[in-house]
């Protein structure tokens, strides 16, 4: 990393920008997974680390690839992560909704709290919960 050619300096500078950006996203996302109040917000935080942070760090590594095969593998890993992480997040969120994990946020259509609405529905004796209602 130490050579003083203009191209090397440019590469180092660009790599530092990418790595610092990626590390920032990584730490913010990790903190979010630890501190966010409910499952869906935590998933948002995890999604940041899985896509933005991973892509930035892999781009930084791409600048140091010694030959074509290594660069192709890095691009393949990047493509793989960008395809699979959102898919896993989507499937996980759908499974959570189907098994009745209630978001903490208010319903954007009615403005009422979902947890409160669910409790009153349960009190009224509405038979099918979200777990059994989703798939039929």
């Amino acid at each position, binding site marked *: *990393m130490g050579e003083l050619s203009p191209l090397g300096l440019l590469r*180092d500078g660009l*790599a*530092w920008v990418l*790595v*610092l950006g*990626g*590390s*920032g996203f*990584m*730490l913010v*996302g*990790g*903190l979010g*997974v*630890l501190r966010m109040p409910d*499952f869906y917000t*935590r*998933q948002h935080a*995890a999604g940041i*680390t*899985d896509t933005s*942070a*991973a892509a930035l*760090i*892999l781009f*930084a*590594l791409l600048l*140091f*690839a*010694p030959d074509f095969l*290594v660069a192709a*593998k*890095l691009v*393949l*890993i990047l493509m*793989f*992560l960008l395809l*699979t*992480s959102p*898919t*896993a997040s989507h*499937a*996980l969120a759908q*499974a*959570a909704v*189907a*098994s009745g*994990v209630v978001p903490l946020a208010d319903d954007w259509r009615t403005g009422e709290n979902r947890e409160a609405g669910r409790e009153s529905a349960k009190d009224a004796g509405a038979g099918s919960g979200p777990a059994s209602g989703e798939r039929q």
Partner: protein
Amino acid sequence: MLFAVASLAVAVSMLFALIRALAGPSVFDRILAVNMFGTKTVLLIAIAGFFMGRPEFLDIALAYALINFIGTIAVMKFFRYRTLGLPRGGEDLGDL
């Protein structure tokens, strides 16, 4: 230096994910944390390969990314339908 900073950030993030995986509270939180931990492991293996000057580590990272995705899908399917192969109710079309 560059790679050290990146791997340190990834390691700290992995620690947070591990705490979340242990703390729960729901099973989906744990799956989420383990999936995130796996993605971080892929990045850590890739960075370590460049750090040690052995870019063939990328093969392992690629395989790990693959297994991580399929493992998440499998665990999730098991917790949602309580079976890996047959769909609930035994219909002909399969699953997930």
